[in-house]
């Protein structure tokens, strides 16, 4: 059976000054997503997570690759309008993503114009959407700056739901929120998904939140996916040394009984030579081959793919 969402070979280049090579922010990204499924995307700042998300919704046109939805090519920038409204993005900075001069009701109602609704139908639907994310109707007449950060986050979510999307791309939906609000937001996201067939691509550097919501996790390092696996397998048996290092760096309170896994501390990388593995400068297990040959993301079983010449052995925390 064809997967519902299928991304193949996606790449985004940022042009540089004349005469210099373009910077590849995202390269060779392949993944699939089923209806109602949540895929977590983790990695450091600058690893290309947000660029990948923006490329999927067409905010930054992808340079290479293909996005297919139900088998139909909906790659942004190719002229098709097939995915419009079906994929929606919820931005990290909810306040920055809202027009400060519009009231909450208008912010949520705006995408509904696109569905061809009249004024009163829009107002009514906006109220329903706010109720779905647990906000009272009297918020409709407030401005974004007059409500709390947690409420703004929910307004952003309500607005994204306005086009009845099939996939929500959530970029760091809980970063900057207090513990209690974070828990409430995660619970809300799970409740919205239950029974609705809504899929999530959840981008976060917080493995704890990702593990709670996502059935599968993809790990990104310097623009490439280095490991994708079911959440359980990724946490209990990471194969890529970078994934192991990410887990080892979690505060013990979050990590609990998992690990610590023996691995070098990854720091901002200068990157390897053009041919080698990008993680090689930080990898405690790197060998000669890692300097010269980039390991492709190689599928293994069960549904556990890793891009490493010398992956950690399966089934245990660390070598």
């Amino acid at each position, binding site marked *: 059976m064809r997967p519902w969402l299928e991304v193949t070979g996606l790449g985004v280049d940022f042009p540089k000054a004349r005469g210099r090579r373009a910077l590849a922010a995202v390269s060779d990204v392949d993944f699939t997503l089923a209806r109602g499924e949540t895929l977590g995307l983790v990695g450091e*700042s600058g690893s290309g997570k947000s660029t990948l998300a923006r490329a999927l919704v067409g905010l930054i046109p992808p340079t290479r690759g293909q996005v297919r939805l139900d088998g139909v090519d909906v790659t942004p920038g190719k002229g098709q309008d097939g995915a419009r409204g079906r994929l929606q993005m919820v931005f990290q900075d909810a306040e920055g993503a809202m027009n400060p001069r519009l009231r909450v009701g208008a912010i949520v109602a705006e995408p509904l114009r696109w569905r061809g609704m009249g004024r009163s139908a829009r107002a009514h639907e906006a109220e329903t959407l706010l109720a779905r994310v647990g906000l009272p109707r009297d918020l409709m007449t407030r401005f974004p700056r007059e409500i709390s950060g947690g409420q703004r986050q929910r307004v952003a979510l309500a607005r994204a739901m306005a086009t009845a999307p099939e996939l929500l791309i959530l970029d760091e939906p809980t970063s900057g929120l207090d513990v209690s609000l974070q*828990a409430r937001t995660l619970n809300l996201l799970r409740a919205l998904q239950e029974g609705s067939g809504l899929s999530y691509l959840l981008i976060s550097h917080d493995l704890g939140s990702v593990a709670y919501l996502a059935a599968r996790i993809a790990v990104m390092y310097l623009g490439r996916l280095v490991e994708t696996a079911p959440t359980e397998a990724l946490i209990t048996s990471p194969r890529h040394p970078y994934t192991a290092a990410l887990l080892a760096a979690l505060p013990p309170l979050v990590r609990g009984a998992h690990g610590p896994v023996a691995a070098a501390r990854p720091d901002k990388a200068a990157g390897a030579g053009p041919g080698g593995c990008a993680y090689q400068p930080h990898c405690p297990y790197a060998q000669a081959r890692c300097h010269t040959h980039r390991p492709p993301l190689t599928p293994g079983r069960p549904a556990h793919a890793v891009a490493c010449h010398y992956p950690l052995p399966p089934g245990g925390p660390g070598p």
Partner: protein
Amino acid sequence: MSAQDPALVVEGLTVRAQGLAHPLVHDVSFTVGRGEIAALVGESGCGKTLTASGLLGPLAAGLQRTARVIRLAGNEITGLSEGALRTLRGRALGMVFQNPMSALNPSLTLGEQIGEVLRVHTGARGAPLEREAARLLACVEIPDPERALASYPHQLSGGMRQRALLAIAIACAPRLLIADEPTTALDVLVQSQILALIARLGAQTGMGVLFITHNLALAAQYADTVLVMYAGRLVEAAPAQAFFQGPRHPYSRALLAALPTLAARTAHRLPDIPGEAPAAHAIVNACAFAARCPRADAVCRSQVPPLSGDTHRFACFHPEESS
């Protein structure tokens, strides 16, 4: 100031706002020892930052501070003139903030910004000043300090910017560092690295750290003392180990339970805390947490529980069992 004095002793700190009958920060007392990290935790709006700025900083217009004791490295500061206080702050206090980009001047190089602090507070000039600036960048583990001195903030990563701010904060060898959400904007790996660096600096120099955060996991990893604030009051204060093994205040316990840990991944829902935290000045004659607390009874709704205890202090009539 003697080398043996605690970095900070606070007794009865209260901050009032003009026109409000009840204080925003109420009767807060704690000590930050030499080389110790005290984590001040709580939700947005609970008064963490106001406590920190109320301690030593100039307050915003309309706010007023009172305290029985505020001793910075052995120096009593209550009653000092603003001029004397400014001198003491320059000598004994360093601060780092949440957003390193807005705390740095985008149009000056790091060298110019660190140099300015050193010139004002140590009077250094020329080559010795440059050497000292490079030494500071090396202290905060910025690779290739010479090159970093010539860099502008936008040329550095978020983590490097926060290190640069830290270098400025420790330029005058402060006895107390106030770090207000220093890592909130950074990703997990870098957060850990910055906190580990702050802990090393504290251990090497005896500098005490007041670490303001809502990140309990980081507090658990790096703090020696945990101070939990709710609606303008301290509700629990304890050595970190005792706190994380057995928090006594129901609010503390609820905060810990709400953390999305790896172990919680299979939970059907995370136990969040129902309702909203009240404003500090809105609650009189009751425990501010009573409305959200599963253990609250009539007593909790009619009296403010005092913060009591010896090393492990908590403000609750019906505390959780100690473990």
